[in-house]
C-alpha cells in the first residue's frame, strides 16, 4: 500500500501535467461530494430583484434570469454531471470490456457476433443515437446514463478486444494454461489485468466525453429538466442571453464544462502510469 502511494507521488511529481490534472480532478470530485454544503446560495432559490446581474462580489459568477446564483448552481451541478458520467462510463466499461475480452480471447463466432454488434452501434451518428434512446425510453436521468453507456460501448469493446487479442498468445498466458488454469481463469486473472493500463486511458478520455454528452442532451432539452442545476441546461438557458449582452449566464457553466472535459483528457496518461508497474523504477 505504501509502495503504491509512493508510486502515485512519483508519477505526479515527475509529470507536472499529470499533477495538474490530479489537482483539478480532486477539485471536481470534492465539489461533487460536498457541493451542496459549500454553495453560497440555494441553487434553486430565485430572487427577481437581482435577476441577470453581472459578476459582483456577492455573486461571483453573476445571476441568471430568475436571479439564481450561477456559482452555486455550477457547484451543485457537479454531483449530477459527475454522477451521470461516472455511472455511464462504469457501465460501458464493465459490459464493453467483458464482451471485448471474450471476443478477443476466444475469437471465432463470439468475435464475429460481438464485433458486428459494435459495428452496428458505431454505424449510427452517436449523439443522434443517444437522443433516440432517451426519447424512446423516457426523459429521465437514468435513461441518460443508459444512452451514454450504450454509445460508449463500442469503444470499450474494440480496445479490450484488440488488447486481449495481442496478449492471447503471450508466454505467460501459455504458462498459465500449462499450470492448470481454465480458459476463463486465464482470461480473468492473467490477461485482463494486463489490459487495464491501456483501458484506463480510454476510461478517462471517455469520462470527459460522457460529461459532454450528458450536457449536450440536457442542452437540447432531453434528460435533466429545467429547475434542476446542470451544466448543459445552464448553457442552454444562457444561450438566449448572449445576444443581449448577458454573457456570464452561458460562459461560466460552459467554461466549467470545458475544464472538466480537459481534466479527464489529461488524467488518462497519469492513470496509465500508475496502473502499470513497469513505470515503477
Amino acid at each position, binding site marked *: 500500500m505504501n509502495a503504491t502511494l509512493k508510486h502515485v507521488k512519483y508519477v505526479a511529481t515527475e509529470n507536472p501535467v499529470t499533477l495538474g490534472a490530479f489537482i483539478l480532478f480532486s477539485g471536481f470530485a470534492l465539489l461533487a461530494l460536498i457541493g451542496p454544503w459549500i454553495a453560497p446560495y440555494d441553487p434553486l432559490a430565485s430572487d427577481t430583484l437581482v435577476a441577470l446581474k453581472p459578476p459582483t462580489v456577492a455573486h461571483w459568477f453573476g445571476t441568471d434570469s430568475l436571479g439564481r446564483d450561477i456559482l452555486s448552481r455550477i457547484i451543485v451541478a457537479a454531483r449530477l454531471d459527475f454522477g451521470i458520467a461516472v455511472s455511464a462510463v462504469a457501465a460501458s466499461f464493465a459490459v464493453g470490456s467483458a464482451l471485448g475480452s471474450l471476443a478477443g480471447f476466444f475469437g471465432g463466432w463470439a468475435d464475429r457476433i460481438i464485433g458486428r454488434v459494435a459495428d452496428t452501434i458505431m454505424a449510427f451518428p452517436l449523439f443522434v443515437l443517444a437522443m433516440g434512446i432517451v426519447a424512446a425510453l423516457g426523459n429521465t436521468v437514468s435513461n441518460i446514463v443508459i444512452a451514454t453507456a450504450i454509445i460508449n460501448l463500442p469503444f470499450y469493446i474494440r480496445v479490450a478486444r484488440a488488447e486481449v487479442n495481442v496478449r492471447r498468445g503471450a508466454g505467460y498466458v*501459455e*504458462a498459465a494454461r*500449462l499450470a*492448470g488454469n481454465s480458459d476463463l*481463469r486465464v482470461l480473468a486473472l492473467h490477461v485482463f489485468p494486463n489490459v487495464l493500463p491501456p483501458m484506463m486511458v480510454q476510461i478517462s478520455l471517455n469520462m470527459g466525453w460522457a460529461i459532454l454528452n450528458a450536457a449536450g442532451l440536457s442542452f437540447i432539452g432531453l434528460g435533466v429538466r429545467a429547475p434542476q442545476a446542470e451544466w448543459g441546461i445552464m448553457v442552454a438557458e444562457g444561450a438566449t442571453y448572449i445576444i443581449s449582452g448577458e454573457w456570464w449566464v452561458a460562459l461560466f457553466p460552459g467554461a466549467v464544462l470545458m475544464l472538466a472535459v480537459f481534466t479527464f483528457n489529461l488524467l488518462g496518461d497519469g492513470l496509465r502510469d500508475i496502473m502499470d*508497474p*513497469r513505470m515503477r523504477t
Partner: protein
Amino acid sequence: MNLLEVKDYSLEFRTRSGTVHALQNINLDIEKGETVGIVGESGSGKSVLSFGILRILDAAARVTSGSVTFAGLDLLGASEGSLQEVRGREIAMIFQNPRTALNPIRRIGRQIEDVLATHTTTLREDMRKKAVEALVRVRIPDPERRYHAYPFELSGGQCQRVMIALALACNPQLLIADEPTTGLDVTTQAAIMELVSGLARERKMATILITHDLALASEYCDRIVVMHAGHVVETAATGELFKAPRHPYTARLIASTPASGQSIATLASIPGNLPDLRRNDLPSCRFLERCERAQQDCASASLPLKEFPPAHSVRCFHPL
C-alpha cells in the same frame, strides 16, 4: 510401469495451405525419476510433442492416432477438468524466454501463490510461506524481498529460476523443460541446468529436456530421443547414442556439434532442410532426401522401428 507412455501418437494441423503432418507414430516412454532428452533441429516437432502430451493445442490440431498415458490416466480421453488437475500439479513445464513466460504486472511471489491456489487449497499465510520457500529452493538471493519483485526487475537467469520455482511449487512427477537455457549466457545455463537436475534428483522427479544442444543433453540425460521432421528417428541410452549412433541423422548431428579445439572450418553440417510437412507424398523415411546413405529400397512404403537390445531403437532401413 512407465510414468508416461506415448504410443503411436500422430498429430496434424489442418491449415488453409494444406494439412501439416507435424508428428507421426511417436513412441516415447518415460520412467519415474529418469531424465530424457529430446533433441532435433528447429521444426522437428519437439515442442509440439510436449504441448500435445498436455493437450494444449491450437484448434487446427487433430490427433489422428495413438495414446498418451500418464500414471495410468489416459490423457487423450480425459476431460478438460481432469487435465487441468494434471497440468501444473503432476506435469509442469518451463520454457525458453522466461521473461515472457511470467506475467509482467504481477509480483513474482503472487504468481507462485497463483499456482498453489489453483491446485492446493491453502491459507493465505501458508501460501506466502510456501512461495518464499519455493524461491529459496531455486536459490534466489534475498527471497523475502524478491517475493515483491516484478519480472522486469529480475535478470533473465533469475526469471528462469522463478519459472522453475513456479513449475515445482506443487511437486510435479514430471517436468518438461523446453529449451530452458536458450537465451541465457553460458555460465547461467550451467547454473540453471545444475539446479534443474539437482532438484529432479532430490525429488525423484522425471524430466524431459527438450533441446537442440546435444552437448547439453549428453551431460544431463539418461536417455536421448532424436527427432527429425515429426518422427522419432532414434532412441538410446546417452552413452550408447554418442558412442555408436545408428541413424545417419544422429551421426550427422553429433558430427556437427562443435568441440573446443576444433576449427570451425572442419565442422560438419547437415545438407538440405526439413521436408515440407504439408506434402502428401512424404516418404516413410523423412530424412531420405537429405541422407547420403540412401539406397533404392529406402523409398518403400513402410518403415519399421528396428530394435537393438537392450534399449536402442532406430527408424532407418539401413542403420549404421
